[in-house]
């Protein structure tokens, strides 16, 4: 696949992403350090951090709106530690989430995650209780087990901007 850059269709995405909290994006020199440690890369996403930052710099809006990898960020912060240019890749990734949401381009991954938080209080739900018992681990005490906590979480979601997106389960 190739990508085509034309000045007529270009947007100043560096400014847009900076305004959404990813000020570091203009500093990225594509050294690749962040990608060497990021779980998103290691698990095999197509355009993990630095590649998306390059698309930002080149003004490629379409890829940025549709790519799922920002939603796979586990906020581990490893990229922040290794970045050679003080980009704070994590913040740029989160700015990209905001960018997609603002463009009403909410990836199924994001819907699933929000839906799961609404239903169970967790983005990723731990199901395998049996295995834990086998190893003598205590049961997970989770929001999902407390109706009261779950209600509160749902309230928060409903009163946040997310409710405007129409992706909360009815």
């Amino acid at each position, binding site marked *: *696949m*190739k*990508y*085509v*850059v*034309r*000045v007529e269709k*270009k947007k*100043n995405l*560096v400014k847009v992403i900076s305004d959404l909290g990813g000020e570091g994006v*203009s*500093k*990225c*020199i*594509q050294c690749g350090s962040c990608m060497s440690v990021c779980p998103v890369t290691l698990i095999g996403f197509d*355009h993990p951090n*630095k*590649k998306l930052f*390059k*698309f930002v*710099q*080149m003004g490629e809006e379409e890829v940025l709106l549709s790519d799922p990898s920002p939603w796979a960020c586990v906020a581990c912060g490893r990229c922040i530690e290794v970045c050679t*240019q003080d980009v704070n890749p994590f913040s740029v990734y989160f700015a990209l989430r905001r960018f997609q949401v603002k463009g009403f381009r909410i990836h199924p991954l994001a819907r699933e995650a929000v839906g799961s938080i609404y239903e169970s209080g967790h983005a990723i739900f731990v199901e395998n209780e049996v295995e834990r018992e086998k190893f003598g681990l205590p049961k997970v005490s989770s929001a999902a087990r407390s109706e009261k906590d779950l209600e509160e979480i749902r309230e928060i979601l409903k009163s946040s901007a997310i409710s405007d997106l129409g992706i909360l389960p009815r």
Partner: protein
Amino acid sequence: MVKIGLYICHCGRNIADVVDVKNLIEYFKDKVNVVRDHLFMCSEPAWEMIRSDVASKLVDRVVIAACSPQNHEKFFRSALETAGLSKYLLEIANIREQCSWVHGKNKEEATEKAKRLIKAAISKVKTLKPLEDLKFEVERSVLVIGGGIAGMTASLDLAKMGFKVYLVEKEPSIGGKLIKFDKIFPLNDCASCVVSSLMAEVANNPMIELITYAEVEEVNGSFGNFNVKVRKKQTYVDWEKCIGCGACTTVCPPKAWKPNEFDEGLSKRAAMYIVSPQAVPKKAVHDPELCVNCGKKKLGTRRFLRGGKEYLTPCEKACPTKAIDRSKSWNPKGEILNFNVGAIIVATGYKVMEKETFKEYASHSPNVITALQFERILSPTGPTSGKILRISDGKKPKAISFISCVGSRDVRYHTYCSKVCCLYLLKQARLVKEREPDIDVYIHVIDVRAPGKDLEEYYIEARRMGIGIIRGKVGGIEELPNGRLRILGFDADLGMPIEVEVDLVVLATAIELPEDSRELARKIGLTVDPSGFLKEDHPKLRPVESTLTGIFLAGCCQGPKDVSETVAQAKAAAASVASLLNKEEIQVEPFIAKVNEEACTACGICENVCPFNAIKVKEVAIVDERSCKGCGICASCPAKAIDIQGYSAESITAEIEALVG
């Protein structure tokens, strides 16, 4: 009987890992008077060891088995000299470059070869006679060839040290390429402010004789006293009278115009022209090949109108000081100047490859230009007065792509890196962004090379300014029907091809040695290295010395370099010249032809074959010690009357016999 000392170097592990030094010591211990080895023979303790062996008369001939004599021969000679022995009773067997480095895989054979080389050196050293250096008077003046930043810097430094300098420049003005630039990295300071003051200083320094519009024709003699012949082209304008007003240049008709070299062909100049507004000397020059002979008044003729009034061409008429006189005929040979100098600095600069070589980059399009042309567009003295416009239609481009490594780092053209392109492209891109932030700017690179003070920071800042850096070599450029250009590139960061549509393309074409510098090198005997630039004597130890004693190199004729490096090299060359010429007399190695007058039959063969005109035959052959370069061609004398000192027939025969024996 001579007493030979053999000194074998381990060169750290360079030699000893391959050549069996113990074996050599064992083998030679009965064949010479002293054998010693050392981890580093070029170290002070080893030097002292040799010196004391000689001083205590343990040895009176020295053989060093180490690296190439290129590296440390002088150093070893000094040990002999300090101990009171003729320093030329020394021979070096090169068991590093010629053994361990090339036969690393075959240790036994390398050791055998080392043995032979040492045997040959021993045989030769036995035949050597004590020699004295030749001593010559020194001419305290210097020829600097090339009036760019390198030549000007070197000239000024030498003039300030009290040397008379002849600065020869082939263009009518000094200033070189740099005077064409707007700004220079990494400070983005004004190039003109850097160069103009130097130009003025050169012009006003009484120790510098500025000879512009001239070329070096011939160099004879040798270090300490070169005889130089310079051809000064005919300018057709009496420079004594010309005040550089430019009146003649504006009346010259368009029929006599051609692409202006100073603007890299982006504008036109007339047959009567002044190189640039900042020219030094600011004098007009007439280009007879371009002249249309207004009013049919050919050069070298006079024409009278009816009534007896003399007809004057527009240029003649326009000149307020009557500096133009077309009744003088054209002498294509010009005027020959002769002078003597003690040393020479070659600073002839560079050229960039023509864009036409690169058909794949749509070089036929007027909107594909070289970086040097773009310098002129950026310059306030250029064709657009520094406005960023396309020359083809005078419009401001919406997007510009800069392409690096055009002809560099490419086995089809040059394998070397032109070294400055990354940074000047970044500079040009930054200047575009500063002046016209809405122009989209891309730089396509194989990678960005920005080593050196402040340079990486300069690059990072360019990225932050929003300049698109696209890592990947551009494969082609297509001209679209609407005149725009489509770059077929590759984005290695994303691992995918990229197409960029732009209005102007700037090519960073490779830096080369100009053809006329190559010609000059041929004339004066300088070596051109495989990259095509002038070769320095030793890349690390003698980086400003050429392969000929007394001739030095400065600036891009020796290889691509930026302004800081060029100035550093020019200053180094000036200092090296001064250190050699700052003496009453100079000492020169005595390896020159020596005639045995008894044997000479005066047949004259040697006079005919000597490429340096160093032999004259009268009653017998006589060698001019200053001119003889010791090349040895005359030793083909049928009467065997000529030997090269230090390389006599006896020595060489002894060496060969030991090698093959």
